[in-house]
Every structure is written in structure tokens, then in C-alpha cells.
């Protein structure tokens, strides 16, 4: 990638990635060497958690620096560091909610944790890649790891099916993404995002069909990963079939990574030709929100409902993408962090409530939870209210911020559609709350196995959801500082 001002090699810049990779392999080796039975291998979770924590500390050291290492292929700036933090937090929380789950479901392999760590590497690469090649490789590392994780529960048909569906469609959409990159490359002669921007600026911001087609195909490819309609169809099936802890992971991680790449590509490379893509994203945003919310209304399986809700959330995030001002970037960063807490928290509670072989996942299985386990019910209500965007939770601040950014750029209609959608969304979140508080139990609740791990994960999620709702100032400030280099 020629002509980047800072041409360094600087292996230290990818230290968090190296740590994650190192710990990933270490988990595998330790797993093989140990003679214990599968159910007893607690140390795998500990080890991978340590890896995540170390990586987080190392990446924290970079705050404030801006660095283009590996000959300009890898960017470190506040933006990518914010995403690194989100990814590592996501991985850490997933490991926390996984530990007992994998033992219960008999999939406590070292590979499980290794793949979580490796897919985190892929996400980091997507957020940090300064050219389309690195973003592409990162996306593939992430996706392939998750294809495997989804199919990890080999003996269960739903898991198999989810894995196959995700894999086939993922590979298919990769084809489109790759074609898009090829056309962009052909039209500009480079794959570096900054060089593309320079080239477009040189042409006075007028694009020819070849480049526009390439841009459209990239939207398809990344739109698939972030579950935007009409590329969302895989989401409910795959979320339902995947092991629940992985569902939590893939509802947050790949979506955040997809948005990281989306923002980088469309704000840096295609930033000057905003008018050429805003209409498409506008339509996609409306379509995504509406589809997600409307179909979610009639779901009976909680994982499927959360899947559709995650589609809707992608739609809200796309609103901010359309707005394309500095406020919208920080809104996306903030919303993703909020979404991370509320989503993983909700899935953690789904894991606690469900029983072996992922049974008891109907919404009606939550009936009367408030009487048997009032604290769990309160926590779940908090997460659902946050997803519905009811104050004073993180989701409210995030939504408000996103809609304000849209209004600020003059997309009033889009904001109105967004608000209408968030009104619709309340109903299906409410159904769970109603079941928990306003119905008698329909089944015997087993005594809870609330291990310290999942307990910590839920507590972190609660704190995050409330903190971001009541005292969001600090995080918002960080989010605002994370956008400076983007445009």
C-alpha cells in the first residue's frame, strides 16, 4: 500500500492480536495435555479470559495514539480502539456466560474458546484494516470461526442446520463482497481506503457506474454480516439453532465489526460521495427496522424474537449511518456498546432459564418468573426495557442519540420512521415482561444454577445498561473522541 506517510513495520501495534492468538493456541494445547473429563475443564475458560483481559489492557495502552503500522495496512486510532474494546468486552462476557453452558451442553472443547478468541482477532482486523484486503481477511477469519461455533453442537440437528445455512449464505455473500471489492479496485486502481478517497476527490466526486456497482456489492456483502434486510433472512434460523452463548456472541460481535468496517469504508473511501449511497442505506434502514420489528411481534421462541429484534437494532444503527455526521459516528459507537450490554445480559438470562439441550426457550416458559426468581426477572426486564428504548436505560440514550443525529442531518422522516418502529418494538419486549410478571408459572422452575461466572456477566451487563443510561456523559465523550480521524 504505497504512499502512506508513516511506513513502519511495528509488530507491537498488533500486540493484542498476538496475545489473543497466543492464548487461543495455548488453550488448545492445555486442553490436549490435560487428562480431566470434559465437564471439569474449568481452566479453559479461565485461560481464555486471562487472554482477553491482557489483550484489553494492552490495547488500552494505545489510547490517544494514531499509528499506521505494517506499511499502512493496519490502523490504530481511537476509533479502532473503541471497537477493540467492544469486541474484547463481547468476547469476555461471552466466555463468562459460556462456561457453565458448554458444560451443560457437552461442548466443553478447548476449540470453543480458541474460536471465540480467533473470531475476535478477525473483528479487530476488520475495525483496524486500512485497506479492503485486510477488512476482507478479518471478515473471513471472523465468519469462518463463527460458522464452526454455530455448528459446535454436532449432535443436534438445529445446530447442524444453522451452521449449514449460515455457511452457505455467508460464503455466497462473500462472493458478492469480493466482486464489489474487485470492481472498486478496477475503477480506482487501489484497494487502500485513503487512496480510493484521494482518487475520488481527484475525479471531483463524480463516480462512474463501475465504482457505483462495486459500492453496491460491498453494501450487499457487509449488509449480510450486519443482518440488514433483505440480507437478514438467515438471522432468525441461525440464532435459533446456534448454542445460546454463541447466539449472544454473534448478535453483537459480527454486527459491531460489520459496522466498524461499514463506517470505515463508507466514510473514508466513499465519504465524498455521500449522496450516491445515502438513498440506498436509507431504504435498507427502513426495511430492516420494519421487517425486524413486525416479524418479531408474532414470535414464540425467545431466541428467535431476540434475533428479529437484533435485525431491528441493525436498522436503527443504519439510520445513523445515513446521517453521516460526526454525531452519528459517536451515536453508532455508543449504541453498539449499549447493545452489547443489554443483548448479552438478555441472552445470559435466557441461558440461566433454559435447561439441558436448550429446552425451555419459549416465551411462555418465562411465565411467572417474577415470583420464583424476582431478581432475575428484574434484570431481564431491565434489559428488555433498554432494548425497547425506555428511559433511563442505555438503549434510550442510544436511540435518542441516533435519532437526533438523523434529525441533525435533516433526515426527519427517517427519524420519525425510527421512532414509530421503536414504538412497535415495545410490544414484543412487553410480551416477555407480561409473561414474567403477569402470568402464573406454567412449569416447575428448576433450582437455578447461577454460577459465579454467569452471575458476574449479568452484573456487568446490568451495570453497563444502567450506567450508560444515567451517566452516559463519559462514554459519550470517549465516543466523540473516537471519531476525529474518520473524516
Amino acid at each position, binding site marked *: 500500500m504505497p504512499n502512506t506517510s508513516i511506513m513502519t513495520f511495528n509488530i507491537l501495534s498488533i500486540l493484542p492480536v498476538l496475545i489473543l492468538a497466543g492464548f487461543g493456541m495455548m488453550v488448545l494445547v492445555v486442553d490436549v495435555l490435560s487428562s480431566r473429563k470434559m465437564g471439569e475443564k474449568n481452566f479453559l475458560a479461565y485461560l481464555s479470559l486471562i487472554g482477553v483481559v491482557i489483550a484489553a489492557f494492552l490495547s488500552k495502552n494505545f489510547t490517544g495514539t494514531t499509528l499506521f503500522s505494517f506499511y499502512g495496512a493496519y490502523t490504530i486510532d481511537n476509533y479502532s480502539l473503541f471497537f477493540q474494546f467492544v469486541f474484547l468486552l463481547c468476547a469476555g462476557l461471552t466466555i463468562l456466560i459460556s462456561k457453565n453452558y458448554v458444560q451443560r451442553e457437552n461442548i466443553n472443547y478447548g476449540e470453543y474458546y480458541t474460536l471465540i478468541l480467533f473470531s475476535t482477532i478477525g473483528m479487530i482486523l476488520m475495525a483496524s484494516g486500512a485497506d479492503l484486503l485486510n477488512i476482507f481477511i478479518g471478515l*473471513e477469519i471472523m465468519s469462518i470461526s463463527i460458522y464452526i461455533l454455530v455448528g459446535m453442537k454436532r449432535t443436534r440437528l438445529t445446530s447442524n442446520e444453522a451452521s*449449514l445455512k449460515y455457511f452457505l449464505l455467508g460464503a455466497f455473500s462473500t462472493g458478492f463482497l469480493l*466482486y464489489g471489492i*474487485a470492481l472498486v479496485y478496477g475503477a480506482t486502481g*487501489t484497494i487502500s481506503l485513503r487512496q480510493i478517497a484521494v482518487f475520488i476527490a481527484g475525479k471531483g466526486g463524480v463516480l462512474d457506474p463501475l465504482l457505483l456497482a462495486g459500492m453496491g456489492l460491498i453494501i450487499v456483502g457487509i449488509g449480510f454480516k450486519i443482518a440488514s434486510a433483505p440480507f437478514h433472512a438467515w438471522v432468525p434460523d441461525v440464532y*435459533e439453532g446456534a448454542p445460546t452463548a454463541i447466539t449472544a456472541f454473534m448478535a453483537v460481535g459480527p454486527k459491531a465489526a460489520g459496522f466498524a468496517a461499514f463506517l470505515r469504508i463508507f466514510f473514508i473511501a466513499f465519504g465524498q460521495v455521500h449522496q450516491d449511497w445515502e438513498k440506498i442505506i436509507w431504504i435498507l434502514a427502513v426495511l430492516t427496522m420494519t421487517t425486524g420489528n413486525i416479524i418479531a411481534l408474532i414470535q414464540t421462541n425467545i431466541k428467535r424474537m431476540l434475533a428479529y429484534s437484533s435485525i431491528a437494532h441493525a436498522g436503527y444503527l443504519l439510520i445513523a449511518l445515513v446521517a453521516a455526521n460526526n454525531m452519528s459516528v459517536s451515536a453508532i459507537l455508543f449504541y453498539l456498546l449499549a447493545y452489547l450490554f443489554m443483548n448479552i445480559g438478555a441472552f445470559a438470562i435466557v441461558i440461566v432459564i433454559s435447561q439441558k439441550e436448550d429446552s425451555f426457550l419459549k416465551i411462555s416458559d418465562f411465565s411467572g418468573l417474577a415470583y420464583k426468581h424476582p431478581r432475575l426477572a428484574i434484570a431481564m426486564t431491565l434489559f428488555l426495557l433498554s432494548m425497547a428504548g425506555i428511559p433511563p436505560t442505555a438503549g434510550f440514550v442510544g436511540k435518542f442519540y441516533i435519532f437526533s443525529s438523523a434529525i441533525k442531518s435533516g433526515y426527519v422522516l427517517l427519524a420519525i420512521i425510527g421512532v414509530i418502529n421503536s414504538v412497535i418494538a415495545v410490544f414484543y419486549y412487553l410480551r416477555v415482561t407480561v409473561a414474567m410478571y403477569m402470568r402464573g408459572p406454567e412449569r416447575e422452575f428448576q433450582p437455578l444454577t447461577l454460577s459465579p461466572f454467569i452471575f458476574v456477566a449479568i452484573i456487568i451487563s446490568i451495570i453497563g445498561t444502567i450506567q450508560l443510561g444515567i451517566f452516559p456523559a463519559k462514554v459519550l465523550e470517549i465516543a466523540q473522541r473516537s471519531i476525529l480521524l474518520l473524516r
Partner: protein
Amino acid sequence: MITLTHYLVLSAILFSIGVVGVLIRRNAIVIFMCIELMLNAVNLSFVAFAHYLHSMEGQMFVFFSMTVAAAEATVGLAIIIAIFRNKETVNVDDMNIMKW
């Protein structure tokens, strides 16, 4: 004289054939082969662009996309084998437990 356009059109034709194949075949392995065809079509575009633009980036990209294809093939075929063990079929129309 063969121009860039020739190569690009050929690439588009192969890509579209691959897409149609994905949509109409039921055998998961064949669907996957059609996806491989799509990737190859894209690679052809890359190499053609690289040649006519006198730039190596396209060729390097192909190098990596082949690696990715290899990795995808490994995992994809493993998934297909896993599902075959459970279900004795590779017909994607049979994989329809989860819907609506």
C-alpha cells in the same frame, strides 16, 4: 484485440452462472461448488484489472482470496459431513426445521 471489457464480461457471465447455480441446485456440495465458481469469476476480474492497470494489488488479492476459498472449502465440507452423519442427506431442502 482482447480488451479488459472482454475479461470483465466473461467474469460477469461466470459469476451470474454461479449465482443461478446456487439458487437452483439442491445438493449442498454442488451449491458450494457454484459459490467456488463465483469466487473464481471474481478472481478473473481481479487479475484482468491488475494486468490492464499495471498494478500488482489485484494479483495479491487473488492470492489471498484463494487462501480464503481453501479455508472455506475445508470448513464447509466439514459442516456438510457433520450434517450428513446426523441426517443422511445433503439436500438443502431437507434442512428446514427452523422457519417462520
